[in-house]
């Protein structure tokens, strides 16, 4: 505790405060700009910081990391154009909210979600670092695969009103996920001999294409038939009813995000999706999901920031990067001759605690920066629709190009965008496709890795306690409707969920 106070003393010096402010500003800007993620930003700034002392540099990097999380959800919500993979889920409910004139509330819910998730996550760093360091490495491929199975079960709740169309969409996503070199054996799959497809299709490109480009084409195709009305902008602040609906998701987020961030290969995509599904299950307003339910923004965003905190734990205590940004930050540590790992807290305790203290400060700065900006950003939607969608297409193109600075990605985006248009035309929901692209490759990798580790024996999938527990949960969920039949009269049966989701959710 005393060390943490010392850390605050270091982090609150004017220079460090300024660096934290620069970091969060840059991070937010980079998050808002599509395609450039925090990983690339830190990597590009790395040479600039050679001359700085390490504490200042890391305070700035941490600001960029968290700032990117805040900024990433902004374009996701307003323009349906996720700037980075952690923000894809924010578009699910955030964009429908924005289109209903509740953009400011969605942004505020996201900002406070990031703040809560980040603060709780950072507190967990302080409290749990040694525990995480000890147990994160116990989680292996079989456990991760079990979680993927759980996530696939959860996909059913985003399939939409027509199961068959939902499954078709999921299969489209899984197919897109197959493209590229098979990671285990190096064989080519669906690359059609093109080197550009060898690395697979970036999730940001798919999300931007299906969401933004498909949507823009769809709107353009209907523009003449629909009255020409700008999107309304409602009152800027969260109402009491909104707060009542969001405080629980904000607090639940870290419970999902932090552990995922801390385990190897966890990342932010799968936990944000799981949080979304959880909130949908627990919400009293299930019918609003797909049409702009505020819980569906609050939960995943809190999860995203908490997972960023979890990532920092593993990076600092084990020297183990679980996301691209952490990998780049690790490289930055090595530039300074500092090797994160079990000895870091003893050797560089000053730096570590100053870094942790600066996380608290950076999050506060970000909240102060982003809350007043929310209503301003939301006014962006007042732009008449033709110009707005032209702008969206522009940003989408910049984003797709910036991911790899490759024209091929741009073409790919428009091809997948046409696919998105076609899916809307024939009533296929696009959400399952996105989930397929996220989950498919991850699940395949973990399953094959488990089987390889056990030399092909199927027991390799269930040889760890955690995997077994997760499978039991899966079985309970799958058979719950059956079990319920045999239970003595349940408490007043909940009204059946009205399945009225809009297909273009």
């Amino acid at each position, binding site marked *: 505790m005393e060390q943490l106070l010392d850390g605050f003393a270091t982090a609150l010096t004017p220079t460090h405060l300024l660096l934290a402010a*620069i970091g969060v500003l*840059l991070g*937010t*800007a980079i998050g*808002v*700009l599509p395609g450039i993620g925090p*990983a*690339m*930003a830190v*990597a*590009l*700034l*790395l*040479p*600039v910081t*050679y*001359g700085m002392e390490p504490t200042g540099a890391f305070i700035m990097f941490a600001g960029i990391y968290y700032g990117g999380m805040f900024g990433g959800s902004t374009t996701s919500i307003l323009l349906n154009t996720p700037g980075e993979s952690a923000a894809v889920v924010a578009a699910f409910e955030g964009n429908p909210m924005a289109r209903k004139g509740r953009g400011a509330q969605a942004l505020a819910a996201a900002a406070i979600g990031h703040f809560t998730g980040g603060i709780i996550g950072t507190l967990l760093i302080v409290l749990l670092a040694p525990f995480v360091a000890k147990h994160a*490495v116990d989680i*292996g*491929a079989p456990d991760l695969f079990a979680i993927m199975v759980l996530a696939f079960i959860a996909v059913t709740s985003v399939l939409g009103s027509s199961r068959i169309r939902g499954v078709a969409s999921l299969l489209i996503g899984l197919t897109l996920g197959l493209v590229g*070199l098979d*990671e*285990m054996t*190096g064989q*080519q799959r669906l690359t059609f*001999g093109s*080197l*550009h497809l*060898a*690395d697979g299709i970036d999730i940001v490109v798919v999300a931007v294409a299906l969401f933004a480009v498909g949507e823009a084409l769809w709107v353009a195709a209907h523009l003449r038939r629909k009255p020409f009305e700008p999107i309304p902008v409602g009152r800027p602040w969260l109402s009491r009813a909104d707060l009542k609906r969001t405080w629980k998701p904000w607090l639940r987020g870290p419970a999902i995000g932090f552990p995922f961030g801390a385990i*190897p*290969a966890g990342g932010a995509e799968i936990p944000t999706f799981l949080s979304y599904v959880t909130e949908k299950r627990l919400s009293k307003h299930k019918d609003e999901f797909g049409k702009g339910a505020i819980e569906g923004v609050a939960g995943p965003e809190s999860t995203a920031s908490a997972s960023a905190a979890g990532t920092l734990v593993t990076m600092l205590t*084990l*020297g*183990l*990067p*679980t996301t*691209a940004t952490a*990998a*780049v930050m*690790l*490289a930055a540590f*090595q*530039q300074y001759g500092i*090797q994160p*790992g*079990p*000895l*870091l807290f003893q050797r560089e305790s000053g730096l570590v605690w100053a870094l942790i203290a600066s996380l608290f400060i950076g999050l506060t700065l970000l909240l102060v920066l982003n809350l007043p900006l929310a209503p*301003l950003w939301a006014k962006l939607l*007042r*732009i008449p629709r033709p110009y707005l969608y032209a702008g969206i297409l522009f940003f989408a193109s910049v984003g797709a190009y910036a991911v*790899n*600075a*490759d024209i091929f990605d741009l073409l790919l985006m428009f091809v997948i965008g046409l696919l998105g248009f076609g899916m809307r035309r024939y009533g296929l929901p696009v959400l399952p496709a996105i989930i397929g692209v996220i989950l498919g490759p991850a699940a395949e990798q973990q399953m094959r*890795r488990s089987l*390889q*580790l056990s*030399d*092909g024996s199927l027991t390799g999938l269930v040889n760890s306690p955690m995997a077994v527990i997760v499978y039991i949960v899966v079985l309970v969920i799958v058979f719950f409707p059956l079990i319920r039949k045999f239970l003595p009269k349940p408490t007043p049966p909940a009204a059946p969920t009205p399945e009225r989701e809009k297909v273009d959710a």
Partner: protein
Amino acid sequence: MSVKVWVAVATALLAVLLVPPLLTPGADSGETSQVRSLRVLVPNQPGGGYDITARTAAKAMEDADLLRNAEVFNLPGAGGTVGLGRTVGERGNGKLIMSMGLGVVGAVYTNKSPNSLLDTTPIARLIEEPDIVVVSKDSPYTSLQQLVDAWKANPGTVTVGGGSAPGGPDHLAPMLMAKGVGLAPKSVNYIPFDGGGELLASVLGGKVAFGVSGIGEYRDQIQAGTLRVLAVTSAKRISGIDAPTLKEAGVDVEFTNWRGIVAPPGITQTDRDKLVDVFARLQKTPQWTEALQRNGWTDAFAPGDQFKTFLENENKRVATVLKDLGLA
């Protein structure tokens, strides 16, 4: 409102574009042998190995006044072969170089790239990093001999993890080791991880029997005693690591992961000599020496023709291994 957006965008752009040039000294000594400007293609993501090498070298050159202006840019994709394709396509361009390494040699085969590194003009090999054979402290193996015996008896269950995809350095090292001890590479149960960091978790957690990777992420864990190094793959021992070389431990294999610089094909002899010369001089600067130390790299300078011969031999060696595995 859009004004604010543009202000934000413009500020971010200004910060990114202006800060680096403001912080680097604008050296202007008119030395004649100075190379004026150079574009450095990095065939992987910012922050990756070739990227750090390229940016470090470019900065050291600028600081040492060997180079007026170096523009480093990334063209990632397909293990570096997308960048290779671009380099080969820029025939005759004496102002472009590409940062590359052993990984690209293998990627040419696994990606079935139409271009080969043998099409380029080799400029210099710069650095090398040995791999280590590493197990967790709870592993039953305390010497390489024990590990090799168990491996030969049961190649399927003695799993080996590496931080690179098939064809990459961490994949080639155990395959060469297998050949060295008389195991067929096909029988090796190699599990690829997304970089040395993700592999580290599996080695620490005892998920794989042993790991083969660059030493980068592992130093601290080794010092903390949570990891045990059974051997290093280079010809010489590494200072600070208490482990024999593969040869000392009875496996006749020598392997390092190296990085270097190539230029497009068909450049003039003058351009080539100039480039080779500038890297030869880089190697002697204090800035480069310091950068090597900071990054834990070993100097492995080999100029032009020497590098060319080396590249041809590496290409043959990699091709043989990958052919055994049906990848080439």
